[in-house]
């Protein structure tokens, strides 16, 4: 079937392109499947290769023009960039998706350099704002710090030679245990990587990470709020108590248990950025869909036959009954086993709901009663606007705190709650933008050509409505980070063993003498929020020249 599909996609013009693309993806697929999946079964590898190649063929067949040469530099550059970006965003899976997206981007018809495009104009406007550009670079730095945190701050060294055994502990799993035999006495010493105090071993050769501490590593000599510029002690492998050498100093001090603050800050970056991205991802998913429907259809334009309307409601009722009511135990069992298992059960439920609703909608065609066939309009705009109003009327922080109070303490739950309560702003902006766009010529054209509303919304209108939404998302990320750090500052919601900036600041509140525990995490939160706000503001100015006053 796949070969048949490939055959249909190939024509004379794009033959060479497709062959080149297939070879490239084949090599990549082999590389990926052997290194990452670790599956040596030929069946898996061949399945993976066939899938990748057919995907690449599909994308390559989209290439419209033959005149320009794609498969030289542009493609390889984008593949590499896609790989790196994918690895940074989602290690383990992004490496697979990233190059494909890069491939897709490079397969698009390249626009002429002198062509005017709105994106280009906005980017040029954005670049003029020096502070915002600087913020963007800072954000990239933060993302890199978050990604490379285990290589920047880790108590497991990058490279170590101990009693003739060479190890690379920072690149290995925390719980890895190595048994080392002393060549002279024959004693066997067990080293578990994360517990071992590497500083105190008599190592032949060692390369530490720039900050030789993990946030969970407790320094027993400096465990009573050691100040950054104060006296820090260190016992070397001979057992002598000396002043800490520069490499082992806690540059930003420690907390009451001896955990290094700088290391905590570096690892906290990861959580702060993750919370911002994921919660706003959820929020923008809900907000964009609801907002675009409300704006596009208004109160009058979403018309359906009365019977279809009732059938949809019925379908939703039955869908929820079978999807969530009937499968309640399946879902909770899934979540009690593992999060991924639960998510699978949950998505099955969602599929059931969609399927049942669809079947009910289809079945409405069978009924031809006159009264039931009259068209009525669904007031989707009022529904969404009312929903936004109601959600806005509850103080968001209080709502989140109340909900987290009855839930288990987990970061995922907090991200989901922030996302679910944070979509109103995005929905409002999308709605306003759609109200403007729906009367424009190209939307009218696509309507009169008979395209479905779904296609008109998502293919024609939405790409042009995203600019103000983007601004709202950037502001939303800032406020999501603020809420998360506020919660962990209060010690609500986030588990104790997760090191976040807010939790570090909370330690400082407990002991006000330890000013470094207040100032440095606070500045980290402040900088991150400012960066996002700056980018949001600058892109608002760039995207909407009218607002610039």
């Amino acid at each position, binding site marked *: 079937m796949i070969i048949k599909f490939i055959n249909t996609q190939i024509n004379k013009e794009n033959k060479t392109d497709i062959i080149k693309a297939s070879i490239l993806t084949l090599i990549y697929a082999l590389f990926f499947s052997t290194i990452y999946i670790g599956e040596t079964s030929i069946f898996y590898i061949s399945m993976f290769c066939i899938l990748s190649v057919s995907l690449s063929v599909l994308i390559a067949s989209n290439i419209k023009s033959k005149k320009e040469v794609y498969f030289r530099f542009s493609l390889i550059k984008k593949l590499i960039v896609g790989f790196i970006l994918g690895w940074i965003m989602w290690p383990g899976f992004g490496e697979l998706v990233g190059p494909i997206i890069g491939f897709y981007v490079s397969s698009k018809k390249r626009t002429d350099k002198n062509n005017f495009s709105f994106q280009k104009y906005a980017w040029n406007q954005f670049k003029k704002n020096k502070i915002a550009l600087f913020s963007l670079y800072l954000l990239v730095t933060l993302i890199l710090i978050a990604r490379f945190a285990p290589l920047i701050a880790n108590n497991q060294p990058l490279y170590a030679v101990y009693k003739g055994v060479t190890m690379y502990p920072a690149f290995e799993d925390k719980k890895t245990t190595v048994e080392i035999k002393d060549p002279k006495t024959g004693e066997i010493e067990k080293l578990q990587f994360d517990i071992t105090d590497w500083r105190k071993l008599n190592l032949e050769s060692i390369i530490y990470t720039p900050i030789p501490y993990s946030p969970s590593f407790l320094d027993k000599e400096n465990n009573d709020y050691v100040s950054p510029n104060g006296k820090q002690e260190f016992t070397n492998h001979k057992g002598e108590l000396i002043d800490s050498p520069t490499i082992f100093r806690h540059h930003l001090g420690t907390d009451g248990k001896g955990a290094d603050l700088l290391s905590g800050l570096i690892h906290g970056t990861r959580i702060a950025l993750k919370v911002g991205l994921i919660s706003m991802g959820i929020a923008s998913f809900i907000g964009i869909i609801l907002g675009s429907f409300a704006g596009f259809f208004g109160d009058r334009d979403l018309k359906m036959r009365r019977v279809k309307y009732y059938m949809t409601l019925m379908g939703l009722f039955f869908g929820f*009954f079978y999807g969530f009511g009937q499968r309640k135990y399946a879902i909770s069992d899934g979540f009690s086993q593992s999060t991924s298992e639960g998510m699978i059960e949950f998505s099955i439920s969602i599929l059931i709901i969609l399927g049942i609703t669809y079947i009910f909608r289809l079945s409405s065609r069978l009924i031809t009663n006159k009264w039931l066939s009259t068209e009525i309009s669904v007031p989707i705009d009022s529904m969404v606007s009312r929903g936004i109003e109601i959600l806005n009327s509850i103080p968001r922080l209080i709502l989140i705190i109340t909900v987290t109070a009855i839930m288990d303490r987990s970061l995922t739950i907090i991200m989901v709650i922030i996302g679910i309560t944070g979509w109103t702003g995005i929905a409002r902006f999308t709605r306003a933008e759609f109200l403007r766009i729906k009367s424009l010529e190209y939307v009218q054209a696509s309507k009169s050509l008979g395209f479905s509303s779904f296609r008109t919304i998502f293919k024609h209108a939405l790409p042009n409505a995203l600019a103000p939404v983007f601004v709202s998302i950037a502001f939303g990320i800032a406020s999501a980070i603020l809420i998360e750090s506020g919660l962990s500052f209060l010690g609500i919601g986030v588990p104790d063993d997760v090191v976040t900036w807010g939790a570090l600041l909370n330690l400082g509140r407990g002991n006000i003498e330890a000013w470094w525990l207040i100032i440095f995490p606070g500045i980290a939160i402040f900088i991150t929020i400012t960066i996002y706000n700056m980018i949001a503001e600058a892109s608002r100015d760039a995207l909407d020249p009218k607002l610039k006053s």
Partner: protein
Amino acid sequence: MLKYTLKRLLAFIPMIIVISLIAFIISINAPGDPVESLTKAAGNEGGAEKQSGTAKKDKQKLRKKWGLDLPLFYFSVSDMASCDTLYKVQDRDQRQNLESLIHEFGNWVAVDNYYKSLLNLQKEQQNINIESMCEQDTTLDKNKVNEDLNQIGFNIVGLLEENKKELVDDKFKNLDKLISSDTYFPSLVSLHNNVKFNHKLLFIKETNWKTYIPSINWYGINSQYHWWVFGDFFHWEETERKGIIRGDFGVSYKDSQPIKNKIWNKVGISFTLSLLSILIAYLISIPIGIYSAYKKNSKTDKGISIVLFMLYSLPSFFVGTVLLLFFANPDTLLWFPESGIKDPLNYNPDWSIFNWERIQHQLPYLVLPLITYTYGSFAFLSRIMRVGMIEVVSQDYIRTARAKGLSEKKVILKHALRNSLLPIITVFAAIFPMSVGGSIIIEVIFSIPGMGTEMFNAILNYDYPMITAFFTLIGFLTMIGYLVADLLYAVVDPRISFK
């Protein structure tokens, strides 16, 4: 104007319903059994007492008093297999276990038989008197008998509360071993066989298809939600339960005191602080906004903009802690007291609100919290004021006013100001909830005995009725804030109320 006010009031009704629903959903999903928590609060704790008759009766009374033996909502959606009077089962774990059993086998009658036979077994097991048994038969080892009996009890409770296949099999195996091998519990044998028989019947009489047919049960107003909101509506005066519409939020788990008495003065403190800070923010931000709009693009304007932007991005908990670090710290500067809102030694409770001595006494306590409360909304407001003013100044009527030869002062203050106030008033509706929400963090930092601290403590103590009460109250009060904003807006811009 009156019509407009009424219209706005009507628009708030669905919001109030939704807020009460959310609060109710939160309160019924709170972990733990409410009656257990309440009896714990009253001090009737104790493992042995848990099963005893008097404690059970007390619990039943409490359950009745707080309406926990009622169905949850006006109606319920379930499947055909389930039993519509399941809410009458008292124990929460047992109820959940029964639900899952019904879900699995789809035959309520069989499940009921099984459950009742288990209860009979439990009752018989509790009635066994070891003392008399040992007196009759002296060969028995009293400790061993006691231990076996306890083991049987544990297994029965396990069966009552669990429905995992491996666990149930395990428990049955244990019971088999304990009851059949030891001859000294003859009365239990037949009951145990009955339980086993009923458990087997479950599998035989399984009607799982019934769980795929939905059914709706109607309970009417005799439901927990109705009681929670309206209380005993027909006995207005003499009833104990008044419902949240008359300010009755139930009883705190912590000390069994009515929540009503505990929260009103706390709410007062918090809202005074919030409103005071918003007032100050408005008072500062309007002149600043006007000034920077008037001197648009000058160096001062740019400087102010940057500072405001920074202030806007500063998290309030950071500012609060830093203020404490620098101005209420014996190591740096001890200008202000560290926590609280009054000194219990020098405070005179007879002082009236505007007593000068009282103000003098409390002002140092309020300076740092007020700064923390204010700066964020102040930055936000100033930025909006500036943009609004710039937009108004470029309008035609301002040019006309200038062309008329009016002084610049008069143009700005008389013609531009009132029109530029519109956007800043609308954001009152956004700032007010923000300020109330922020109060929980600020009050915790400065240990102000207000609503925020109380809610924080309630969360730490798992005092769920208290949390729900605060949530509902804040929701309602925010709604009032919205109403005020709407009315103010109509006052400043009369066009609104005629629409």
